[in-house]
């Protein structure tokens, strides 16, 4: 033990990362460079970039729940042009892979974002946040429907040759059907989960705790849901997965690897302690050493169900649901 050389490098399709520890979209910004050495990260995922500047939702925008965080930031960002002019050059100063998270209100907006970012040097991959409502379709969320998800991803696919990640929402009956649609549309990597929809109300004022009303729940509270969804998708599809949801330490990360993730991203954990991603890299290295393993690949999907244990079975396509 301790003698074998650990290699943390992971291959997510064409996207090769020096280690499997990322920081999740919306929970990390350039300001973190003041506190940690970001060049040690497997990759940085940017906050969602939209076509035009977005002001975001009215505050309050976050509310702490039991071991969780409810947020409705509302995709505040200065828009893709500003990102290319100001944001990207900052990130490029650092030797770290950069994944740009994009969000749109129509299929065309996603496609246009893919086209614009396709040419951007220093952008190593695109991640489609398909948890947004489709304003054309009356505000139904793209990511809850396989066909809508397919359309978003294939529209992006035809506009970019960069590695393409689809980020899945957990607010669905059948995550596998969405995952499959995204892969069929050309996503090379899936990341999951985004936040669970939730609401909190102040019993004194009768007002929602968030200015916007509903929000998305993240943090350790949702970890079991995320681990479960990773495993469902892992069993059904052969595609590299980025596990996200409540990761605070290397043991949480190992749980996701065992369930089937090939990389993990720390979201809310960055707020708890900005050092968490680096601590995970260190902890993981030691853990692999102690187990006599060579790399993360030795963990991926290696959860050992009891002989005879059954998994919850899920309909394989939306169609199958209709009986």
């Amino acid at each position, binding site marked *: 033990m301790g003698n074998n050389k650990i290699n943390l490098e992971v291959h997510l399709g064409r996207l090769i990362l020096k280690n499997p520890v990322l920081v999740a979209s919306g929970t990390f910004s350039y300001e973190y460079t003041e506190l940690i050495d970001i060049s040690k990260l497997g990759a940085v995922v940017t906050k969602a970039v939209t076509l035009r500047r977005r002001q975001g939702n009215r505050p309050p925008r*976050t509310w*702490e729940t039991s071991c969780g965080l409810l947020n409705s*930031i509302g995709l505040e960002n200065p828009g893709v042009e500003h990102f290319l002019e100001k944001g990207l050059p900052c990130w490029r100063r650092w030797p770290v892979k950069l994944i740009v998270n994009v969000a749109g209100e129509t299929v065309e907006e996603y496609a246009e974002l893919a086209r614009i970012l396709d040419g951007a040097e220093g952008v190593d991959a695109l991640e489609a946040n398909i948890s947004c409502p489709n304003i054309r379709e009356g505000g139904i969320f793209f990511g809850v429907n396989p066909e809508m998800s397919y359309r978003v991803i294939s529209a992006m696919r035809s506009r970019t040759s960069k590695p393409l990640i689809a980020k899945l929402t957990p607010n669905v009956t059948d995550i596998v059907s969405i995952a499959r649609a995204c892969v069929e549309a050309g996503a090379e990597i899936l990341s999951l989960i985004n936040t669970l929809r939730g609401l909190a109300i102040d019993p004194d004022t009768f007002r929602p705790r968030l200015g916007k009303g509903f929000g998305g729940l993240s943090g350790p509270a949702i970890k079991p849901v995320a681990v479960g969804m990773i495993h469902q998708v892992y069993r059904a599809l052969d595609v590299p997965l980025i596990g996200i949801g409540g990761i605070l330490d290397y043991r949480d990360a190992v749980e996701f690897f065992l369930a089937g993730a090939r990389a993990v991203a720390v979201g809310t954990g960055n*707020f708890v302690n900005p050092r968490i991603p680096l601590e995970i890299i260190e902890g993981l290295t030691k853990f692999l050493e102690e187990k006599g393993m060579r790399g993360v690949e030795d963990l991926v999907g290696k959860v050992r169900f009891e002989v005879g244990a059954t998994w919850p079975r899920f309909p394989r396509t939306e169609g199958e649901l209709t009986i």
Partner: protein
Amino acid sequence: MVSQARLVSSTLIKKNWMTDEVVRLTFSDPHIPALAVPGQFVFLRPSPLNYPLLRRPYSLFDVDEEKGVFDLLVKVVGVGSRILSQRSEREMVDLIGPLGNGFFLSDNSGQRELLTWSDSKHLIVAGGMGIAPMHFLARRLKERGEEVVVLFGAVSRNEVLCSSEFQELGALFVVSTEDGSLGKMGKVSSLIPEYLSRDKRIQIYACGPRGLLKEVVELSRREGLLCQVSLEERMACGLGACRSCVCKVGTESQFEYKRVCRDGPVFRAEELVVE
């Protein structure tokens, strides 16, 4: 301004209960006292466990560069502050700081413009725990020989804090309570007019509940006074990443969201839309 915030583990070296609900905590730390300016805050983990999950922001009540210590004034209002207030002396507390932009003072190593003149009179207006960032501020002002008046408003006399601390600095400390149990009865904003004088430039520094800040901002605009306020908003990252803690800058019809943690917590009254 390049942030000099650090991730540190500071030792809690002294606990001093000021009232039933407010405790003054003294921490030793080699960096923060030297780096901090009045109005800045630290973002700390109440417990080494992951519960509560998020960090909590606390203003620097004061720092002592020589001793390498800084103080926080913590009011017990919920789970995080309760746990923090129950930490024992000699325990380590995980914190990030100093954070945010402090009050606009000429001695902020030139990082913010000069807004102080020798012919100024400095009115500190604090409601309740809004007093927390003001001791550090008042001390800095007094060190430069400025005239400092602290107007402090509380609900009742048992919530009146730090009068002797401010008097020791040589500041005038005037109290109002809503129930009249100490000082003038009424809101602290009603004390302000008395202390306005024609012959001096009035500079106001306010911190406290939203209602108070709104009044102070409106009064300052009406009277053309220089005024800065320190805001509170719910924070998640404390660093500027998440855009949780925003406030409106501009006008009601044409505003931009700014981050209290990074662009504030101190803002100029002119630019703020206080709701």
